[in-house]
């Protein structure tokens, strides 16, 4: 009986642990892929629900954070695939073409920088979108590779492009 209770309680405990560590990242992910505030809140709740339901199958073969980010990015990708069916998405190589270059405000106003960054993220193809979002969460290339399903070398190339893109179009001072 005690073992059954323990098995039932494990997903709740794991969820509490994952949610405490990653709730802000989940909220940022939802707002990055869904511009509408109400729908973004809905997506955030759907990610939490998906994470909670998935943890019944968690077997410890990957870190809990890796599991949580995979679930979150997969639910976000499904949401984008439904919401933006038919939209033309670009790769990191083509991203330069969709960023306005003559925007002086963009270099000084943090809110403006974030708005433009959200615009860029929304226009990217799913894999590149995941990589840039995970980079912005401050993750190492090897962790990003594990979550995204790419080789570490491939992620390193993409991160190099992302850094160059951010440095040339999204330069910022130290945030407040």
């Amino acid at each position: 009986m005690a073992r059954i209770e323990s098995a039932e309680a494990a997903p709740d405990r794991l969820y509490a642990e994952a949610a405490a560590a990653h709730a802000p990242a989940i909220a940022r992910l939802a707002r990055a892929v869904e511009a509408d505030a109400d729908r973004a809140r809905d997506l955030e709740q759907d990610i939490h629900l998906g994470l909670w339901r998935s943890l019944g199958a968690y077997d410890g073969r990957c870190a809990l954070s890796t599991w949580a980010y995979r679930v979150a990015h997969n639910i976000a990708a499904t949401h984008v695939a439904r919401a933006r069916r038919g939209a033309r998405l670009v790769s990191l190589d083509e991203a330069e073409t969709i960023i306005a270059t003559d925007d002086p405000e963009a270099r000084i106003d943090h809110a403006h920088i974030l708005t433009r960054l959200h615009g860029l993220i929304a226009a990217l193809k799913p894999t590149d979108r995941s990589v840039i979002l995970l980079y912005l969460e401050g993750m190492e290339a090897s962790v990003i590779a594990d979550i995204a399903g790419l080789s570490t070398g491939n992620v390193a190339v993409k991160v190099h492009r992302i850094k160059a893109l951010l440095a040339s179009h999204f330069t910022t001072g130290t945030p407040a």
Partner: protein
Amino acid sequence: MTDPIVNLWTAQQSDARAPTVAELAERAASFRRRLLMRDGIEYAAGGLVIAVFGHIAIDAPDWGVRIASFVLIAGTCLVMRNLWRRRPANDPAALSQNALGYYRGLLVAQQSTLASVARWYLAPFLPGMILLIATTVRAQAETIPLAAALLNGGIATAVIALIFGTVFWLNRSAARTIATEIELLDAAGDPAIN
């Protein structure tokens, strides 16, 4: 040294609150209700078609129309079964795949459904419709000239062919777009290519 834009990014929603388990359970129940409602509407539409042709199958004096109605009912049942079998799998554990594998799986499933729409959605209705048109032409030929009956049958066939052809073409076109996306995804996943 951390990229300043990473600091700017992670400063957003730093106070985000996770829902409690009770709130999640309530959301899961609401999600199940929504699914039930969606499935209910889909199968009610199928049930309506079965009811209409069931009525015709019982009431129609012409045996040809009766047989065509039964064949149409069988086709509708087959399509409903196919819809049930092709509904998205409810497997929360599948969400833990890496992002590339999960997204590719999503695209492959969509592509397969769209590319095979002629087999699982359109074809089951065809025998019943062909029988119904043929029977109607035969019945009409008893009261009007054969040429006029054949013309009516031809018009009905053309309208159905146009509808089915459009559905087939739209789905095939969407399937081809997704197939291209899968190819690009496979190429992008290869570090030697990208």
